[in-house]
């Protein structure tokens, strides 16, 4: 087991290295760089090439590509992400607060999604091909279809028109004022959670359907066991594994993928930071940010793999 964990852990490194190379190269293919954007706004006639070269040297853009890449990698090994090319502030500082916000929102949205998906999915499976099933499926697909940014606009509009109230638009950390914090974050969490519950509902439904057809369920039923007991003890336990995977992977994506929702609710999270950084051609910040999001995703994958072995003894690790 220990050997397997180590092996799986080490296998994460080539993937992350690939992500790093990909984002590094992609960024440098993008036309323009941070210096150009800052000093040549508009026509760019005023910029003096000598000064541009000096500014480039200041942010390290004069070095050859391979050197820039190695510097970045060496920094990561030392847990030092360097400074942002645009603001000059350390990247760890830039990311820290926004990460807290994004993490909290991702957790809240995942809780909303889980609370919706599991009961609804079970219900749909038990009443397969009845109007209950259809209603649940239409409800969850509707969530998948409504853009969460539109749902956000509607929510804000609804509060304004009906209650003459607006959720707070400035972020307050949870530890400063929990009420203020929740009053702001619960709405995007609901909008996003509803949307992300769709896939998990579907997975719960199909996993339950599959399990309910197994022989041991029929046996349990035949020996006259309570339906309630069959469902919780026998069916649910076995159906939850794939559902858990889906929820975990969605959580990982939620952390960095809420670009548009953050925009609507004026949340300064990782998604917004990514858009700002890439539009400033802030190479150092963008590449570290992307690597962080990819790392979380790959790491959650890794954790799920380990958890699988724990939850399902049939799975053996080599």
């Amino acid at each position, binding site marked *: 087991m220990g050997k397997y964990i180590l092996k799986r852990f080490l296998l994460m490194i080539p993937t992350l290295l690939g992500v790093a190379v990909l984002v590094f190269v992609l960024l440098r293919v993008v036309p323009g760089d941070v210096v150009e954007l800052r000093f040549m706004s508009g026509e760019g006639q005023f910029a003096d090439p000598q000064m541009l070269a000096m500014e480039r040297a200041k942010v390290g853009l004069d070095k050859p590509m391979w050197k820039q890449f190695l510097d970045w990698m060496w920094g990561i090994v030392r847990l030092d992400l360097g400074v942002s090319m645009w603001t000059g502030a350390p990247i760890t500082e830039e990311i820290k607060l926004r990460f807290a916000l994004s993490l909290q929102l991702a957790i809240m949205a995942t809780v909303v999604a889980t609370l919706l998906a599991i009961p609804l999915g079970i219900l749909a499976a038990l009443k397969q091909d009845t109007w209950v099933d259809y209603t649940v499926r239409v409800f969850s697909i509707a969530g998948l279809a409504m853009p969460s940014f539109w749902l956000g606009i509607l929510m804000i509009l609804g509060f*304004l028109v009906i209650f003459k109230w607006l959720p707070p638009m400035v972020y307050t950390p949870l530890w400063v004022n929990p009420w203020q914090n929740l009053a702001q974050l619960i709405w995007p969490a609901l909008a996003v959670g509803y949307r992300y519950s769709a896939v998990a509902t579907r997975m719960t439904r199909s996993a339950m359907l599959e399990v309910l057809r197994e022989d041991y369920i029929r046996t349990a039923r035949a020996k006259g066991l309570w339906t309630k007991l069959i469902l919780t003890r026998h069916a649910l336990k076995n159906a939850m594994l794939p559902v858990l995977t889906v929820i975990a992977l969605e959580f990982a994506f939620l952390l960095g993928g809420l670009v548009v929702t953050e925009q609507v609710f004026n949340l300064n999270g990782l998604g917004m930071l990514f858009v700002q950084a890439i539009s400033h051609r802030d190479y150092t910040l963008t590449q570290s940010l992307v690597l962080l999001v*990819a790392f979380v995703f790959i790491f959650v994958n890794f954790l799920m793999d380990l958890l699988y072995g724990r939850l399902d003894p049939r799975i053996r690790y080599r």
Partner: protein
Amino acid sequence: MAINVPAETIAEVSLAPARRAWIAAAIKFTRQRPIGALGAAIILVMAAVASLAGVLAPYDPLATDYGGMLAPPSATHWLGTDAFGRDVLSRIVYGSRTALLVGFGASVLGATLGVFVGVASAYFGGRVDLLVQRVMDIFLSFPLIVLALAVVVILGTGVLNVTLAIMVPMIPRCALVVRSSALAIREMPYVEAARAAGFGHARIIFRHMLPNVMAPYLIMLTAFLGQAILLEASLSFLGLGVQEPTAAWGLMLRGAAVEFAEAAPWMALFPGLAISLGVFGFSLFGDSLRDALDPKLRTL
């Protein structure tokens, strides 16, 4: 005596059962999967609106009218006008063209490239497979929208570039699913026989393997369609997708629609409804198709 039967009669006779079979299949689908049929109906309406946009739209979607800005819904402008005095209904009608163009373009391209990658990866196996899988893993570790955004920033905005940007994150997702189906097909006796007969790689892949992964291909394609439309709307909403003055639903929700949401809610309401309804139709249809073709297939 039956020698001089006119050609048309023959054609009619041979066509009739085929047409009847189609209708019967449609009825059967509606009965067994009412949800999927609802989705199909929405898609058909959307396609009709897009192709008849010139006839259906009461106004030119680009015509500005600075005398009638932000007008509420009325008999002349059913869904009101926007901040430039453009008719919202006409822009929604024409916006369906953008949505379908980008949606179909991106999903067909993405799913097709994904199928090739997936089948080739499974067919060649060994080192090729391992390498392809690692590369796909790398692409899969980006959230959909982050990857699409990065591609848009490189290529620039506009309909074509947005289509390409949405296509990229779809390739690995399709490849992953198709590969797992193709792995089983590779072990089939007929593939082995084809190999034993000395056919080339290309022929085996195209003639023997590709036709057998059509089910996952279709499933992924329909599953992508709705998501592609949604992704286009999101990118346009961020200002990184389709550009003004082209009529696009996501674009209509941007800027003035949010600023004047309280004074002119129709600007935010109706385009969002159009997006939701369109994606809803494709998702319903895709969901039922997936259930019908392969209920065990697990796709995200």
